[in-house]
């Protein structure tokens, strides 16, 4: 089963308007299964305090959003419905650090790098034929803390070394 995963990363509050996740609802119009997570404000603070994050890596997160849709067959969602998201990421001065394209699958990773080697956000867009997933993680992270998040579910993908693009990466 193929999947479209869209990960959004955080943007500093002063930088620009928040993305309207209702724009992604169209993606799931024909979905046979869906996952919808929205964590922000006090709810997110409650969640991080209960998570036992001893490193404090998550304390500056301001929003975590997930939209994930599965489809019975290919062609059930419109790639064009991803356009508002990609446009939003461009306007926010994100850097695309990974761009992998194959016949029926694309994966993009964006980061928003702040001064002092901090991440302002992390976005992943991965689109497959029969599944769409959107995850948006908003908030400031230290690059050096990214590796420590393995215990809490975030893998080390080398971002703390400045990130690497694949040989297949394509610039917009």
């Amino acid at each position, binding site marked *: 089963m193929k999947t479209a*995963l869209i*990960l959004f990363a955080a943007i500093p509050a002063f930088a620009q308007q928040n993305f309207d996740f209702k724009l992604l609802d169209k993606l799931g119009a024909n979905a046979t299964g869906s*996952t919808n*997570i929205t*964590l922000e404000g006090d*709810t*997110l603070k*409650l*969640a*991080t*305090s*209960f*998570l036992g994050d001893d490193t404090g890596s998550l304390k500056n997160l301001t929003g*975590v*959003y*997930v939209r*994930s849709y599965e489809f019975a067959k290919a062609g059930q969602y419109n790639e064009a419905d991803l356009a508002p998201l990609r446009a939003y990421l461009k306007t926010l001065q994100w850097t695309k650090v*990974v761009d*992998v394209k*194959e016949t029926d*699958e694309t*994966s993009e*990773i964006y980061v928003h790098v702040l001064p002092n080697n901090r991440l302002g956000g*992390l976005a*992943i867009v*991965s689109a497959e034929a029969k599944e769409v*997933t959107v*995850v948006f*993680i908003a908030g400031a992270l230290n690059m050096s803390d990214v590796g420590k*998040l393995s215990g*809490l*579910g*975030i*893998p080390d*993908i080398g971002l703390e070394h400045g990130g690497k693009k*694949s*040989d*297949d990466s394509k610039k917009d």
Partner: protein
Amino acid sequence: MNLDDELRAALQREPAPVDFAAKVTAKTRTSKARVVPFRRRPAALALAAALALAALVPSAVYQYRQQRRAIQARDQLIAALSITKVQLQHVRERIQQNTRHKI
């Protein structure tokens, strides 16, 4: 692979230990000695306990509900981070595959 079928097979009930029932029976014998039938408790004491409990219930319920909200939020956060991790891992593996391909 049908994951539903595989999960059903993997999660078939595991039998209780052979002496499980015997241990439970043994514990009930100890428990019998401790249980005091309600009718023997002084009525005044029972009434006082009921009133004290009634006073505590609203704040206890509120705290319980707050805790459950926090736990649900935490579980959602874990799920979001797990999904993130799986997808990042997937991207990394695709990059590695493409790199090996080129070599």
